[in-house]
């Protein structure tokens, strides 16, 4: 299902990142960086809450809005009960919506907020996402100090928080349309190869987006996937070529753009996490759209709906992907 919007604009964005993202090529686009993964707190979960608090303060400062002027705060993260978002957004806004779509939360938030604004229910909405490398490591993988060996296809959860303020007031970048994704299951079971798990989501959503809108892939200056990693992007490109005879030369991945994969060997195939796409889109691509270097960008944030418990019960890992089209005004 694709929704079209004509009065939803991105008014301002804010991004905060951790030490690994700071070493990456997009460093100068971030508003604030932390050198320490604890962010001055005693645990990584508390550090993630701090990241969310910081990014909200940063966004309000940049946009000039007051806490109580925000109509809706919408966001999510990877932790159980989305604690980073709920604790971090305490005291902000007149309504709260917690959403979970794993790493595709960033585009789902944009989509839902855009619907609320387009429908005239709210004037503005604060969308945010966060993730923390080590709190997700604890939740989904092994203890932090445990020396688990990783294959080349594994991805690295990005640390940081990203927020953007959507409103009905005209600005430089608008949300043009968005395609809601479906849960896909291609019977993938390898948690160390999330690109392969999530690529079916991108294939389905991108195909439906192009059909619904009647556009070619070349309509967009850039199509970015959320966190497929370098191997996942190749799968999507190859699949479109072989199945639909469509070439996607303008397809890139946020997880690859965020880091310098040649130098940062610990990243392996690329970045992941809800904030991975947010850090790239809300900072780097947003500024390119503002400067009119890009006219149209399609964000396909991907999420592996992964639960270690279900995997131990011999279930597959399903995935979802939501698409949001951004346009320079």
């Amino acid at each position, binding site marked *: 299902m694709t929704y079209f919007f004509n009065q939803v604009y991105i008014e301002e964005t804010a991004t905060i990142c951790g030490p690994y993202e700071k070493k990456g090529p997009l460093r100068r686009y971030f508003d604030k960086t932390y050198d320490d993964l604890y962010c001055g707190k*005693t*645990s990584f*979960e508390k550090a993630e809450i701090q990241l969310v608090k910081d990014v909200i303060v940063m966004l309000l400062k940049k946009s000039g809005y007051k806490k109580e002027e925000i109509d809706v705060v919408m966001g999510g993260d990877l932790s159980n009960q989305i604690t980073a978002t709920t604790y971090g957004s305490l005291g902000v806004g007149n309504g709260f919506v917690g959403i979970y779509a794993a790493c595709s939360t960033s585009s789902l938030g944009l989509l839902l907020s855009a619907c609320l604004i387009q429908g005239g229910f709210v004037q503005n909405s604060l969308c945010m996402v966060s993730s923390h490398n080590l709190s997700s490591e*604890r939740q989904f993988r*092994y*203890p*932090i*100090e*445990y*020396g*688990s*060996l990783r*294959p*080349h*296809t594994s991805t690295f959860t990005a640390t940081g928080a990203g927020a953007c303020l959507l409103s009905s007031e005209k600005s430089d970048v608008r949300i043009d349309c968005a395609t809601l994704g479906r849960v896909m299951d*291609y*019977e993938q079971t390898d948690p160390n*190869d999330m690109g*392969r798990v999530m*690529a*079916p989501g991108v294939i389905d959503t991108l195909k439906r987006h192009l059909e619904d809108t009647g556009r070619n892939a070349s309509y967009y200056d850039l199509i970015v996937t959320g966190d497929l990693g370098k*191997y996942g992007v*190749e*799968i999507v490109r*190859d*699949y479109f070529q*072989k*199945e639909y005879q469509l070439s996607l030369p303008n397809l890139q991945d946020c997880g690859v753009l965020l880091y310098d994969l040649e130098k940062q060997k610990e990243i392996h195939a690329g970045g992941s996490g809800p904030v991975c796409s947010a850090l790239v889109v809300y900072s780097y691509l947003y500024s390119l759209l503002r400067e009119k270097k890009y006219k149209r960008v399609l964000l396909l944030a991907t999420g592996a709906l992964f639960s270690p418990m279900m995997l131990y019960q011999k279930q597959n890992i399903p995935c979802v992907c939501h698409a949001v089209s951004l346009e320079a005004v």
Partner: protein
Amino acid sequence: MKNTKYNHIADLHKPKENRLIHIFISFLSGGFLGLVGEGLVEFFVSYFSLSRTDASTFMILVFIFMASLLTGLGVFDKLVSIFRCGLLIPITGFAHSMASCALDYRNEGPIYGIGSNMFKLAGSVIVYGIVSAWFFGTIRYLIEVFFL
């Protein structure tokens, strides 16, 4: 049908892992650890006049202590990424798994955190170690009773 087609395409883009090299490195590092252990046993036997059994126990204690200490210092996981499973298979890996779990849950307190999560990774080893020890002990006992 769709899945086989997808898997076929996805397989083309799967990078190769250098298993042979990893196995070789693990073989060397594990073997080196064994050599150090043997050296320690000899050291304890000749300098502290211990029996070989007692010396082995002390050697294991030294290994457990070193692995736990290096885990606490945040070095062990980096060593594993270089020396591979050669460090995880011996007793050092066991100590490392317990120390890393304990460290991981220190924020949740001594009862709900460290106490209940320390054996998260090592628990399986202990349970099946005891089960197999009972199993082989029984076999040995039956052989002794009926055949000797």
